[in-house]
């Protein structure tokens, strides 16, 4: 830590970690509903538990990104944060909007579009908080005017993220049009804005961990995020095959999204090379694990699993099946959860001021989570193949097919439990690591 106000990142990370833990409880409840008759049908029906599960995901990832940004910006700009007070107020606004949204789902209120279920009033609070965040960060950068590539890409991603959210607030009469713009939020977040943020954070951490020269790291950052946007923006078309949109999207969506794994592969190779050619001894081995493991999981979950069903010839059969769920879980974890875990572990010793501490628990949590998510992704994939074949190709009705998939839901539940075990070890480690008695 080079600046005192970098500490403003800490509450963001604490809340992110807690919401991550809560997200898993709702995830496990949600998958259990696929396996057994639901005793909570009138208490917490599937739509509520799913809404909470996916909202907690988005909230904790965004909190992680914001915390990460607050940590990076003073160090990159070589100045203190413009206003620690705004950072704190903005934190409580986001936290309040998040908690209020979750409570409203529990009470049965929802805006009713997946991921964007937040009632409109709470969306307005989120927008206000996002504007405060951007204002605070831009004012900080303008203090010294050091527009490093890392800062530029990070802030570009943040502005992109905030602007796209606006397309998810308006009610549209036409469902097809609503979904057309819904993808401007969902797709252009995860395959656009968030990739910029993730790329910048990864570049920052690699720069600090490996000691590789900044120009090299920044050159590769531009190449990667450039290719991400060149393929990912028009790649939105892979969501426009079957929602009332013209058929020419088969070509635009198919070709561009088939290229989307390329920049991620670059990111993997680049990360590996930077680590191999490191100029410093990497002391923070847990952060290194998440950086390299995350790059690989990003490639597998987002790249390979996305590619697997992105072509229209395949997607016409798999669209809206558990194949998408498998891809969604592995991609969100691989691309964004791992990134935040990396950033949290990278900053933790600095925020808490440790020199040397035991890392074995953090590394154990890494391997358990990676294994659990991989197994869960595979189980959901097999369940999706069963569903595609029996329901979509043969034509056995939906619910009977679900019975055929049951074994794989059970495997997914067991893997989810394994993942959760790893995650709770991580959460324990987050609060305990380096504290008195735990040092080596």
């Amino acid at each position, binding site marked *: 830590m080079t600046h005192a106000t970098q500490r403003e990142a800490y509450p963001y990370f604490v809340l992110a970690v807690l919401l991550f833990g809560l997200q898993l409880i709702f995830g496990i409840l949600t998958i259990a*509903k*696929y396996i057994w*008759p*639901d005793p909570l049908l*009138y208490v917490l*029906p*599937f*739509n*509520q538990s*799913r*809404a909470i599960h996916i909202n907690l995901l988005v909230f904790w990832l965004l909190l992680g990104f914001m915390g990460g940004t607050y940590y990076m910006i003073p160090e990159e700009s070589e100045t203190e944060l413009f206003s620690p007070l705004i950072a704190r107020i903005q934190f409580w606004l986001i936290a309040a909007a998040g908690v209020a949204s979750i409570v409203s*789902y529990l009470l049965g209120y*929802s805006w*009713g579009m*997946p991921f964007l*279920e937040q009632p409109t009033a709470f969306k307005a609070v989120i927008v206000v908080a996002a504007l405060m965040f951007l204002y605070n960060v831009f004012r900080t950068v303008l203090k010294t005017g050091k527009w490093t*590539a890392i800062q530029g890409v990070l802030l570009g991603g943040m502005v992109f993220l905030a602007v796209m959210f606006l397309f998810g607030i308006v*009610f549209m*009469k*036409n*469902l*097809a*049009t609503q*979904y*057309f713009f*819904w993808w401007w939020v969902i797709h252009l977040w995860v395959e656009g804005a968030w990739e910029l943020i993730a790329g910048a954070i990864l570049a920052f951490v690699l720069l600090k961990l490996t000691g590789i020269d900044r120009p090299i790291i920044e*050159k590769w950052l*531009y190449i990667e995020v*450039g290719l991400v*946007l*060149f393929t990912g*923006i*028009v790649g*939105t*078309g892979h969501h426009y*095959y*079957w*929602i*009332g*949109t*013209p058929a020419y999207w088969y070509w635009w969506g198919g070709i561009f999204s088939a290229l989307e794994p390329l920049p991620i592969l670059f990111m993997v190779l680049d990360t590996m090379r930077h680590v191999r050619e490191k100029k410093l001894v990497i002391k923070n081995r847990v952060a290194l694990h998440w950086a390299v493991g995350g790059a690989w999981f990003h490639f597998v979950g987002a790249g390979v699993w996305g590619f697997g069903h992105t072509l229209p010839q395949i997607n*016409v*059969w798999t*669209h*809206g*099946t*558990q194949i998408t*769920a498998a891809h969604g879980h592995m991609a969100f974890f691989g691309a964004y959860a791992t990134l935040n875990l990396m950033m949290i572990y990278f900053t933790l010793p600095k925020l808490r001021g440790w020199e040397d501490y035991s890392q074995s628990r953090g590394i154990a949590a890494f391997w358990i989570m990676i294994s659990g998510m991989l197994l869960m992704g595979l189980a959901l994939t097999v369940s999706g193949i069963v569903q595609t074949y029996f*329901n*979509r*190709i*043969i*034509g*056995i*009705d*939906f*619910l*009977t097919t*679900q*019975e055929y998939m049951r074994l794989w839901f059970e495997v997914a539940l067991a893997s989810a439990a394994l993942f959760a075990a790893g995650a709770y070890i991580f959460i324990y480690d987050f609060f305990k690591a380096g504290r008195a008695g735990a040092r080596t």
Partner: protein
Amino acid sequence: MTQASIRNIFIGGTVFFSLLFLYLSYDSLRQMPLRTNEATLTPQVVAGKHAWQKYNCNDCHTILGIGGYYAPDITKVATYRDADWLGRFLKDPEGVWAAKRRMPKLPMSDAEVGDLVAFMGWVSKIDTNDWPRKPMLAAGAPAVSSQAQGRVPGSEGPMLFARNGCQGCHKINGVGGAIGPDLTHVGSRLPDKQAQISHLRDPRSIHPQSSMPAFGKMSEHDLEELAEYLVSLK
């Protein structure tokens, strides 16, 4: 290449592909009113979309293939369930379609039920580029009937069986659901055609404990055809 030139390629390329995407989006949005029959997007359909969002249907059901994967896709439901059935189902899901995976009875008003049914009817006519594709069983069923329509009694049976969703609950020759009894040999158990028709009209008149929905709204002709087919399953 210098960092500055790479940055310029990054910015230039991003602008170029953004403009390309915006142009394609503009063109799609221009075509979509026709492809989605916006002329038939009545205030009732809009009210139905409000209800669809209000009850957060989309986090269990997919629509246009997007949403929760817990329950059947809604996009084309109105093409194989008529408004009467959909309305009855929405008011009392378990009473009409008893399944192991349950849908809660939602506190919907009659007006909301009507709005939702209108919404589903409108959605089912969106041109989705023929998604979802017709599966093999459904694609095969009408062919049987058109081949022999009106000549052999009962020849429309398999098509009616598929169209009314009977296989959702019942198996024939190993294909179909497990909620209701296997019908592979139903003709041996209940060989009387009139009894079959009575059962279809009101299952509880034959089996007082039956949870099967009544199919009394099928036409006389269709009931005859379906019953003929059922008694032929020996």
